[in-house]
C-alpha cells in the first residue's frame, strides 16, 4: 500500500524540507516504520518511548482522526493521505 504523508514544518528537517513524502504500509504503524527507514529519526518525534502516538500529535488518515479509529492500527488504504499535525493549535 503506498500512501502520501503530509509532513509538518517542525519535522521537515528529517525529509530534506519536503512537505509531502511517499511511504508504504497497510496500517499507520507500518507507515511510520517505513518513514523511519527513509527519514531516520522521524519515528521518535511522533511516537513516545512506549511506541504510542505522542500526546500532542494528531494523525489523520484521509479525513479521519486516528484516535476515533484504531490508533496506530488504523488501516491505510492504497492512495490514502496521511497528515501529521501538532495538536497544540486552536482555542
Amino acid at each position, binding site marked *: 500500500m503506498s500512501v502520501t504523508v503530509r509532513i509538518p514544518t*517542525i519535522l521537515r528537517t528529517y525529509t530534506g524540507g519536503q512537505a509531502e513524502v511517499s511511504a508504504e504500509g497497510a496500517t499507520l504503524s507500518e507507515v511510520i516504520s517505513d518513514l523511519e527507514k527513509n527519514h531516520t529519526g522521524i519515528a521518535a518525534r*511522533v511516537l513516545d518511548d512506549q511506541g504510542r502516538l505522542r*500526546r500532542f500529535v494528531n494523525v489523520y488518515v484521509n*479525513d479521519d482522526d486516528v*484516535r476515533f479509529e484504531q490508533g496506530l492500527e488504523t488501516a491505510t488504504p492504497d492512495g490514502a493521505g496521511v497528515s501529521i499535525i*501538532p495538536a*497544540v*493549535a*486552536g*482555542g
Partner: protein
Amino acid sequence: MAVQTVASTTDSAIANAVDLGPAAALSCRECGHRVPLGPVFACEECFGPLEIAYDFSAHDTEELRKRIEAGPANIWRYAPLLPVPADVATKPNLNPGWTKLVQADNLARELGVTGGLYIKDDSGNPTHSFKDRVVAQALEAARAFGFTTLSCSSTGNLAGAVGAAAARAGFRSCVFIPHDLEQGKVVMAAVYGGELVGIEGNYDDVNRFCSELIGDPAGEGWGFVNVNLRPYYAEGSKTLAYEICEQLGWRLPDQLVIPIASGSQLTKIDKGLRELIGLGLVEDKPYRIFGAQAEGCSPVSTAYKAGHDVVRPQKPDTIAKSLAIGNPADGPYVLDIARRTGGAVEDVTDGQIVDAIKLLARTEGIFAETAGGVTVGVTKKLLESGALDPSLTTVVLNTGDGLKTLDAVAGTGLSATIRPSLESFREAGLV
C-alpha cells in the same frame, strides 16, 4: 511559591531578534526544550506546546504595584508582565481589558453563596468577548515578527476579534470558521471588512485545516493568532487573573469557575495567579480552579470524572458553540490544574445553560452568551453537589455577550401584546 516561568540562566545564550519586553525565550511545557522567540508553537523535540518564559528579575514588588495602578485602564497596565514592548500602549490596537468585576449579591442570595460572589464580565471588551485580550497580544507578536496578514481558526468570537484588531492596526485579515455558526457571530466577524471563510465541518476540522495551511506556501507570511502565534496569544488570558486580583484589592479569590474550550484560558489564568504570588503582589494562599463545559462537548469533564489524565476527543453537539472544541489542546493541563488546586471539572446540559443565562440576566442584569450560561450553570451545580464552598470568595467568568447567541434564548419575548389603552393593559393582567 516560585514563579515557574522565570527565565533560567541558560537564556543568556538565547539571542532574540525581537523586543517583546520581559519575554526571554519559548519553553516547551512538556520537555523544557528552549528556543528563541519566534512564530513557532510546537516543540521540535516532542510536539509539546511552547510557552513564554520570562525574566521578571528586575521587578521590585512595590514599584511594580504602583506602576500597574498608574497604568492605562486596559490590559497594558500589566505590560511589564506580558510579551510586549514597553511602548505597547502607543501602538494601534484595540486596548481591551479592565472589564467590570461585578459583585453579584442577588445571584449569591439565590444560590446561597455567603462568602462573596463575583462575575468577571468580559462582554465589556471592544468586540464583546474575552478574545480581544488574546488577540491584542498576538497582534503585537505579529508586528514584531513582520507579518502583515492576521488569521485564525475560530468558533466565532475570535473571528470578530481578529477582524477588528486587524482593521485598527492596518493588517489584512483572513479568518476561518465552521460554516454553521450563529448568525450574530458571522455578522460580527464579517463587518470589519476582512476575508471570512466558512469551512464545511466543525471547529476541529477548521483547526486542522489551519494547521495544514500554515505549512503550505499559501499560508506563508500569515500570523495565525492561535496557531503559530499561540504562545503569545495565550498569554493574554493571564490578564484576567491580574485584573480579578487587583479588583479584589490585590487579593486572590478562593474559587474560580472558568469555561473550557481548548483549555488555554484556564491554564493561563492559573499561570497568572502563580506569577502574582511569585512576584509578591498577592498573598501566597491556596485557591481552587473549577472548569466548566457543556455536556454536549465535555471531553475534559468526562476525563476528569473518569480519573484519566488523557483527554479522548469528542464530536461536539451543543448550543455552546464558543466552547465546542472536541479535541482541546490544553485539556491535559486543565486536568492537572483542577486536581492540583483541589477544584473539579463539571458540565451542564443545553437546558441548564439556557436556564443559567436567564438566571444571571434576571438577578444581575448581565446578558451572557452561552459560555456564560455554562459557567453559571456549572457554579449552581457545583454548589448543589457541595464541591464549591459557599462560604468562600468565588469568581465566575462570563466571557462573552448574549447578543451574539440570541438563538439560545429565542423563546424569550413579549409578556403580552395589547392595544394602546389602559383598559387593554389592565385586561392583560400585568397590574
